């Protein structure tokens, strides 16, 4: 009933295609950021170390005092004094293999496993200074905290992008539909004149736009997934770094398949609303 206007067709299909492509990337980014944030969060829970250097006589006292303090500190899951062998293994690279580690007065090392949000390093240091003067707290894994925050931030951005893309797609399709309806004012007038009901006229538009959006989104999703699949190089080199995290793994590949049906539903809703609005107005 409605002429196949090349323009609205290109616009709708093209928009759906481009938006689906972008949505797939945003999804990949979001899922990657999510994975990254999880991984980094996990490494955060790894051990910090407390090193106690004290004269041989005081070592045992200071160690047990330090252990008491650590156990009383909130945010610490467990503490463990390192065995001499472990310590030797840690230091070996820095000395010749024939270093008599056993005979040296080495500092005692305590591994700390954090829990939940982790402990407050500033408060802990202050307490240690007072009671265990020889203790040095090395929370070296702390540097990852801002990166976890950043990954979470990135995940939020990705979710926002997906939402924005969905909204933009809906707006564009609705716009194209209104366009098409306006351009087809004569068609609508003729159909009303010969006694066509609103639903009959609206259907001609919704069907067309839904199909276009579906086709465009399917193509865009396919292209987006293809582009992601063709990005293995980055995965290999930097799979574990911030940027290598962008990409889809395993079951993640199912998520983009939601994009085309979502685009179709969006198009159907937007077009139907636009059609009935125009029909009511045109009288």
């Amino acid at each position, binding site marked *: *009933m409605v*002429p*196949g206007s090349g323009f609205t067709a290109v616009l709708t299909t093209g928009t759906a295609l481009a938006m689906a492509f972008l949505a797939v990337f945003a999804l990949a980014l979001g899922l990657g950021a999510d994975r990254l944030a999880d991984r980094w969060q996990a490494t955060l829970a790894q051990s910090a170390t407390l090193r106690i250097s004290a004269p041989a006589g005081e070592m045992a006292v200071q160690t047990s005092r330090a252990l008491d303090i650590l156990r009383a500190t909130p945010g610490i899951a467990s503490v463990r004094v390192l065995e001499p062998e472990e310590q030797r293994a840690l230091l070996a690279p820095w000395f010749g293999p024939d270093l008599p580690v056993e005979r040296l007065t080495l500092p005692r090392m305590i591994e700390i496993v954090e829990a939940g949000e982790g402990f407050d390093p500033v408060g802990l240091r202050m307490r240690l200074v007072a009671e265990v003067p020889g203790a040095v707290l090395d929370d070296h894994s702390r540097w990852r905290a801002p990166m976890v925050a950043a990954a979470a931030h990135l995940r939020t951005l990705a979710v926002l992008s997906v939402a924005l893309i969905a909204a933009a797609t809906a707006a564009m399709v609705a716009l194209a539909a209104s366009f098409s309806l306006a351009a087809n004012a*004569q*068609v609508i*007038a*003729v*159909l*009303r*004149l*010969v*006694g*066509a*009901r*609103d639903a*009959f006229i609206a259907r001609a538009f919704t069907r067309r736009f839904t199909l276009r959006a579906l086709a465009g989104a399917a193509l865009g999703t396919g292209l987006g997934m293809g582009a992601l699949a063709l990005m293995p190089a980055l995965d290999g080199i930097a799979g574990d770094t911030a940027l290598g995290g962008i990409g889809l793994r395993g079951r993640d590949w199912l998520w983009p398949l939601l994009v085309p049906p979502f685009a179709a539903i969006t198009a159907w809703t937007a077009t139907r609303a636009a059609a009935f609005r125009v*029909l*009511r107005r045109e*009288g």
Partner: protein
Amino acid sequence: MIRLEEVAQDYGDRRLLRDVDLHIAKGSFHFLTGPSGAGKTTLLRLCYGELTASRGRVLLFGEDRKDMGRDALADARRQVGVIHQDCRFLDHLGVAENVALPFTAAGLPVPADDLRELLGWVGLAAQAQARPPTLSGGERQRAALARAVIAQPAVVLADEPTGNLDWEMSLRILSLLVELNRMGTAVLIATHDLNLIRSAKAQVSARVLRIAEGTLQSAGSDL
């Protein structure tokens, strides 16, 4: 079937029509004349419910236009064949498909034989597949007429249906409408062509109405 009671129509501040009473009964034949800009097209648009009267009541098949929903109005329009002054078509469909639109829009099958016969009668057999924009002015008017009558509506409203037609073709169109009228269809023709009215009066008992100074009057006996 269509009844206007004390109808008035305003465009903005301007009262174009007032005190219009008109009854298009089954089997009636009306002509509507009046100078250009008098309100003939406006009156027709009131009759098929495209305009809502500023005052008064318009009854379409017994129902008040003001109380009708959009679907009820659409259904009522299937009973009314309209030939617009500026004939509008679906330009991407062929002439035959356009003429068949009243069936398509109602979801009914198209009677192919009737369609072919009607197109032959209005002289568009050769143009059945042509796109409306390539038609000549008169061909468009004939296509609009065919579309208006194909579904055998209860009422035919024709706005200047012979404005672009030569005299022979005008008579041919007239005889089609007279034939329909004899079969019970009510016909209302808005026209400037006094010769056409005279010809018709020789064939059927037609009432001639005239819009003058915003009111609807019966035309003098000279017609």
